[in-house]
């Protein structure tokens, strides 16, 4: 067991400005934290114990793996205290063999190959899957007969990252994204190095591994000379690079940006003429704000964009926001590596708050531009008997534009499964 002196660490981390000593013990953090109560802990208790010098207890409590480091506590703290930083330090101090295996294994897999995929997907396989999938789209959709998924294209405007989940387990979900790029005429490329989005090394608390991953990806983008590193519909992958560049003082010759920002831009510019005409039945949608994308990084501009896109897509009257939302939104419980940590009971108990939030919107669908949110919200829906479906933005964008293929609908419910298909229901 490595015992950390949390108070000393906190002081070293924050020489000025925010100060852990400033805690008012008001409990705003604890009352809004879905991890409050696990292992007798909550964010306020963590700070108090650090101040009381209870370093052994904090160095060993498994609570640090149920905290998703979502920073809602920091967001509501009147004194600007961020408990998640101390949680990261505590995680890092755990002996590797005692850390949740799923998180450690994913980080180890990322280290193995130049593609940095946490699922261990090698670049040659990635390239092959991308080629095959693109070929299928070109063959089956005349509208996209010239569609390309470029690889290592020097000087492309966008360097697009890719969550390993699609190429490894559901390549048909790649199509909608590429169709959107094709539709707006985006100049983009994938890369053979550092293409993967996910970064579980950040969740292990191992700063060196986090840095190594980000450095590899930053180098890959610099090498291709792209203007924008475009993060697709994934939350933590944006945060890990965006934050990592600053934290590890890396030289990035590009702007990290989110696909959500570009969806909104393209819609405003008329390049993506989405509308809600298809939603004749008044199907209701709610929206999950990914913590990593909203509260932890871009904030209100991205929250505004998400709502702008959603309203355009589903119709003003069919969008019901969760409460609280935007930067005050609750983490779904899939973040911080929780989904991979093997602690299903706690993860679902954590997610109950999200489930109740969704349930009270009475929405039929939850839209979320984040893979972890997507998986967790589906899982808690099954577990607690919810009747909603969870979809990415790209599915709905393509549905609205009438370009969503038959095999790209696995997350749509029966009400939308055939909408717009030739053999099915027609658009009005």
């Amino acid at each position, binding site marked *: 067991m490595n015992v950390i002196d949390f108070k000393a660490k906190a002081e070293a981390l924050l020489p000025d400005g925010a100060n852990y000593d*400033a805690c*008012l*013990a008001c409990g705003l953090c604890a009352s809004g934290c879905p991890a409050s109560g696990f292992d007798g802990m909550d964010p306020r208790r963590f700070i*108090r*114990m650090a101040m*009381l*010098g*209870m370093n052994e*207890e904090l160095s060993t409590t498994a609570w640090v793996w149920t905290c998703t480091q979502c920073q809602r506590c920091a967001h509501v703290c*009147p004194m600007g205290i961020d408990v998640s930083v101390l949680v990261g330090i505590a995680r890092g101090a755990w002996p590797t063999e005692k850390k949740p295996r799923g998180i450690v294994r994913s980080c180890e897999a990322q280290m193995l190959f130049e593609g940095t995929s946490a699922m261990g997907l090698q670049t040659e396989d990635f390239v092959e899957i991308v080629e095959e999938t693109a070929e299928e789209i070109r063959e089956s959709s005349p509208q996209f007969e010239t569609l390309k998924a470029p690889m290592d294209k020097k000087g492309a405007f966008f360097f697009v990252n890719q969550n390993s989940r699609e190429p490894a387990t559901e390549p048909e979900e790649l199509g909608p994204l590429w169709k959107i790029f094709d539709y707006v005429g985006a100049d983009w490329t994938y890369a053979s190095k550092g293409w993967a989005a996910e970064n579980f090394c950040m969740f292990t608390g191992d700063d060196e591994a986090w840095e190594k991953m980000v450095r590899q990806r930053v180098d890959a983008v610099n090498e291709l000379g792209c203007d924008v590193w475009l993060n697709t519909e994934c939350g933590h992958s944006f945060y890990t690079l965006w934050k990592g560049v600053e934290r590890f003082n890396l030289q990035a010759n590009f702007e990290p940006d989110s696909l959500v920002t570009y969806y909104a831009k393209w819609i405003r510019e008329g390049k993506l003429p989405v509308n809600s005409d298809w939603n004749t039945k008044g199907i209701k949608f709610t929206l999950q704000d990914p913590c990593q994308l909203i509260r932890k990084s871009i904030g209100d501009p991205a929250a505004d964009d998400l709502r702008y896109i959603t309203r355009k897509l589903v119709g003003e009257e069919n969008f019901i926001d969760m409460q609280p939302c935007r930067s005050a939104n609750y983490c779904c419980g899939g973040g911080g590596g929780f989904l991979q940590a093997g602690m299903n009971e706690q993860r679902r108990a954590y997610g109950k708050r999200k489930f109740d939030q969704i349930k009270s919107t009475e929405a039929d669908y939850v839209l979320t531009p984040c893979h972890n949110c997507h998986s967790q919200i589906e899982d808690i829906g099954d577990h607690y008997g919810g009747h909603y479906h969870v979809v990415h933005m790209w599915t709905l964008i393509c549905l609205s534009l009438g370009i969503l293929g038959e095999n790209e609908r696995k997350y749509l419910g029966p009400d939308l499964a055939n909408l717009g298909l030739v053999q099915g229901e027609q658009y009005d």
Partner: protein
Amino acid sequence: MIDKSAYRELETEVLVIGGGVTGTGVMRDLALRGIQCLLIDRRDLNAGASGGNHGLLHSGGRYAAADCETAAECRQEGEILKKIAADAVDPCGGLFVAVEGDDADFAGKFPQHCARAGIPCVELSPKEARELEPALSDKILSAYQVPDASIDPFRLTLANVQHAKQLNGSDYLPHIEVIRFEKTDGEITAAICQDHRAGTKLKIHARQFVNASGAWAKMVAELADCHDVNLLYSKGTLIISNTRITNAVVNRLRPPGDGDILVPGGTVSLLGTTSDSIDNLDNIRPTVSEVDRILKQGVALVPVLETTRFIRAFSGVRPLLMSSGALDDGRKASRGFTLYDHEQQGLSNFATIAGGKLTTYRLMAEKTGDLVASRLGNENPCQSADVMLPVDEGTRWTEPGYSARHWFKHSDASDLILCECEMVSQSVVDKVIQKAPGAEREMTLQAIGLRSRIGKGTCQGAFCSMRVTSHLYDQDIYRNKQGLGHLRDFVSARFKGIKPILWGEQMPQMELAETMHCGLMGLDLLDVDDARSQQTDLSEVKK
């Protein structure tokens, strides 16, 4: 006029007046000799200097230059307390440090002075001193290491009382004040007392009477027409930081002055003190200018004090023995003690023990015990230096951080935490109410606070005061509006200590407290007399 027959009457072998560390020490000393006592205090345990000090277990270094005898006493007694009260002592060690601008001659003679009093003293290079205590100034002239320690004076007092109770059923009663003595033929036969809680009078018969009332010793002696006790009152103010700043005690190596000792108190540090002669013991409270003086001096020794968060200030009054040359300067007055047998004042069963220090309290109690025992014909020797003080579920909750570790270890989600800062749970409050010395049916929050860490943390009782009050109503311990009165009294008392350190983070902390206590609870509008006299049970109102 209250009818004499309406007095509640009590009988004991020895009545000890004053629930400070000396009075409780006398109680334990006598109980160890098999003598039954009753201890009373006008307010409660440690209400005077015993609760208003640094909690410093002196190695004697502080007095080595000026008062070799006291220094040697401190050294001996310090060693004894480290043994018999190991649980209440943090053997953290101490440093004496001179910084630029301090008198190098005075500092240079420190090892000789220590040697003369038999105090182990090791010279450290400035680098070594800063390695031990990184918070020290980088302008160190010289540094010495001595066996100082810190001690929890509340734990000591509680353990003394608990021990006496266990030994022979000796008892302690709070809020009982002596208003006069009844005397016959050169002996006191009874003390007539006022019970401030019950509002009734009490007559306590005893064979021997011991006055251990600290700063009030002169007044109590005068109630028995003894005019031989002459004290100098020296007010000292200290401030408490939110977290522990140094591991060891840090003393400024110079002739004693303001703000020159920083003592760890478990999870916090205490910086002090001032020393101002006063005439009146009423309304003792810390002031802004005292805090400024302490900090100004403290910063020279430990620069981080400039930006440290302080959570409270408090004051105590040192009862110093008047001696020639010490008229107006408390720091030059003797730290020694005197046992008055009052025989020249015509009394043969009354004694006053006065002066002294926290560190030497056991010796003071021993000398008092010797006199009282011999007067009673009891030949049992003093055992207080050899028998360990007990630790039990009624007395162990004042230790900083203990409640938190205890709760975490037991991890019982149903045992709700009432005080978040110090992590004091319901079950701990219940143990205090049931088992702590001086526990009674309707304990005030202040009484619970001095037996636990309630109200001691960052928020200074802002939250726990309300939660503990609610818990006590739930338990049917508080039944009418009086409970709100206890709540108001508690937060008002806390605020006295917070007012002089209201800057930085403690300002928003108090804004929050004000919002809750006044805005939410309306405690500022609570009619005290209404609350005090109201007889209706809330439980009846609910029906």
